């Protein structure tokens, strides 16, 4: 290829970077400074893009993830070299697992020091190859515009994901008056968006002869904003819908065709529908092992149709008869333009699913007077926020209760670490979402364990006027670990019950944030309402039943119908 050079006025690498971020309409940058990125931070001094200074690099990446998860735009992060960059790894891996668009700039020592174990040097290319969609190291200042343009393109198209740009300090300092051509030319990267017509025909033929079809709707539906099309399609052919954790919000929860979330802590109706369908249409889910514990038993007698933008997902877990590599919205739109003569009677199937759903809803002891039930906290908040809040969760029992009891209603609404299962994710992610949408109600549900992994970000609530509602589901333990120890390790509670806890109210207050502690089940609803009415950031420490379990549950490795704890 011939390198075309464009004239510019003399600019530093750092300035070229800011120009490129402006060209991408970047709305905010999350970051933390350090030696290797000082030239960048110097340029930020005069830059119009707001920079959010977190208190830890993990917080910066999760906050950017939260921003990306609710806006659908790429989250942007800047961290310094070495420890700054390694602190960011967890967030990068998290974004990779959940296909979240991100561009992460990691500072790097100056080029002559690379590979010489220089001060604060870490091999970020080596470290991030397995946890990024792609990564770059800038070797020529003239490439900065091109690399950044490509990085955003890669991060936000196809199956989205994080892209790391490793930026040696001398590259930010170097000045140039010409830059290399930034036309995107990536012959090895051509995501397929349009579905194959023949496969669509096959799918519709299968549907015409199916009497027990089911749709599994995953994150792909949310990513491609195909909720309206999904609803149309499901209604037209009366196909029941099961959501994955990350697919929540893609189908109205109060719809008669909605069976709930499937998988390990999914509903009975959802898991039974996944056990005995004759046609399973998977829109944009990757058949994760929390959904498919025992692949040999999963939808055993069904024809499986799998629609995914990533060809490598199709056939990875289950044998797929109808593979469709495409964008979900594009596929559903085309499916809706096709018509079939429905040859089968689906009423029996519909009734069966309805009965299962009615008989075995998610439930808990609603009348408990002795202690606050965590599920109730979530239900009440669901009512207060009318199912419309942007909801972040951390990881653990509370995460599953939120998935079971919060009435999600739209795409880009749930922020949860579905793939990596990262404790410490929820609180900073909610911060990112609230910064993206200051007027929206954003709720962070966190466990008392996970909150302590990133709670230092309380500091930034006042700094940036972040009106976030943080709800600690405080059970005094690492609840999910405790649950597994109870069920699978003979109640040997090894290191899962906290000896001591900080006073979360005082902790919030120490950061200048309002804190309240709720302990009375009788006044819970009123207390929550009051807390939510508070016009500013608030930490609501809900002291809940310490022994509550997330049920029902499919033990790991078991089939979806082998649920335990079905009421």
């Amino acid at each position, binding site marked *: 290829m011939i390198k075309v050079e464009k004239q510019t006025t003399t600019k530093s690498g750092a300035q070229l970077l800011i120009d490129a971020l402006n060209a991408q309409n970047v709305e905010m940058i999350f970051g933390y400074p350090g030696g290797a990125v000082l030239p960048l931070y110097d340029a930020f001094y005069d830059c119009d893009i707001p920079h959010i200074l977190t208190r830890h690099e993990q917080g910066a990446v999760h906050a950017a993830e939260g921003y990306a998860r609710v806006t659908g735009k790429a989250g942007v992060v800047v961290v310094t070299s070495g420890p700054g960059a390694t602190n960011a790894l967890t967030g990068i891996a998290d974004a990779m697992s959940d296909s979240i668009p991100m561009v992460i700039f990691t500072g790097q020592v100056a080029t002559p020091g690379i590979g010489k174990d220089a001060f604060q040097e870490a091999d970020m290319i080596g470290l991030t190859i397995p946890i990024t969609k792609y990564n770059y190291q800038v070797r020529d200042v003239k490439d900065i515009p091109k690399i950044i343009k490509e990085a955003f393109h890669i991060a936000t198209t196809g199956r989205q994901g994080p892209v790391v740009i490793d930026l040696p300090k001398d590259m930010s300092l170097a000045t140039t008056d010409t830059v290399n051509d930034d036309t995107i030319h990536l012959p090895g*990267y051509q995501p397929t968006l349009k579905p194959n017509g023949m496969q669509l025909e096959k799918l519709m033929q299968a549907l015409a002869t199916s009497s027990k079809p089911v749709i599994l709707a995953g994150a792909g539906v949310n990513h491609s904003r195909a909720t309206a099309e999904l609803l149309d399609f499901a209604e037209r052919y009366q196909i029941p819908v099961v959501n994955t954790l990350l697919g929540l919000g893609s189908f109205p929860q109060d719809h008669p065709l909605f069976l709930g979330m499937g998988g390990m802590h999914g509903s009975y109706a959802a898991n039974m529908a996944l056990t005995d369908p004759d046609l399973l249409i998977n829109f944009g889910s990757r058949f994760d092992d929390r959904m498919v514990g025992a692949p040999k038993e999963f939808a055993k007698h069904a024809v499986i149709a799998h629609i995914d933008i990533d060809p*490598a997902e199709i056939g990875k877990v289950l044998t797929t008869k109808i593979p469709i590599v495409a964008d979900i919205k594009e596929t559903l739109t085309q499916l809706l333009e096709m018509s079939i003569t429905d040859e089968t009677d689906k009423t029996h199937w519909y009734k069966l699913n309805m009965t299962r759903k009615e008989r075995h809803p998610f439930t808990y002891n609603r009348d408990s007077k002795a202690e606050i039930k965590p599920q109730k906290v979530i239900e009440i908040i669901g009512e207060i926020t009318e199912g419309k809040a942007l909801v972040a969760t951390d990881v653990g029992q509370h995460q599953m209760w939120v998935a079971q009891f919060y009435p999600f209603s739209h795409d880009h609404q749930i922020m949860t670490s579905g793939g990596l299962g990262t404790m410490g994710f929820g609180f900073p992610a909610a911060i990112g979402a609230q910064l993206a949408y200051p007027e929206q109600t954003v709720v962070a549900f966190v466990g008392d364990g996970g909150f302590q992994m990133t709670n230092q970000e309380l500091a930034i609530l006042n700094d940036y006027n972040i009106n976030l509602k943080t709800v600690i589901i405080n059970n005094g333990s690492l609840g999910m670990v405790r649950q597994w120890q109870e069920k699978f390790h003979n109640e040997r509670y090894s290191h899962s019950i906290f000896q001591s806890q900080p006073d979360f109210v005082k902790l919030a207050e120490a950061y200048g944030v309002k804190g309240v502690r709720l302990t009375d089940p009788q006044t819970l609803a009123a207390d929550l309402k009051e807390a939510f009415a508070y016009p500013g950031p608030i930490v609501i420490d809900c002291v809940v039943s310490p022994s509550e379990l997330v049920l029902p549950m499919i033990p790991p490795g078991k089939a979806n119908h082998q649920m335990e704890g079905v009421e």
Partner: protein
Amino acid sequence: MRRIITATVNNSSGVLNRITGVISRRQYNIDSISVGWTETPNVSRITIVVHVDSLYEIEQVTKQLNKQIDVLKVSDITDDPHMERELALIKVNAPAANRAELNSIIEPFRATIIDVGKTSVVVQVAGTSEKVNAFVDSIRPYGIQQMARTGVTGFTRSAK
């Protein structure tokens, strides 16, 4: 089963790392891997020999490789008419008394002696891995001092 995969890739830094990472992460064992320039500037060809248990597994490997942004094309050429070649350099004991005998082994394999020392010679042999293996077995009794193999490289035959 043994599968032979070829990939054309951008010759960017770290690309080999990406490729081997994808394969090893999914717990497949790489038998051999060889890389070199192609007719196109900045494009390299990688030939990978892997052992897998099923065709399903090799499909997963090729799909994951295909997904890599620097990978331009991946093919599993095992079942297509193809050529594969491996080169081995072997330093073998060769006291004067044995040389004639050694020659009689070398010739049918079309191997060549490329260096001669007092008590040893260096032999070069090229061909399929099978042929190289057979050759190595044949001269092993003379005492191999050192051996280096390149791993397999290959591509499909021209259309006829």
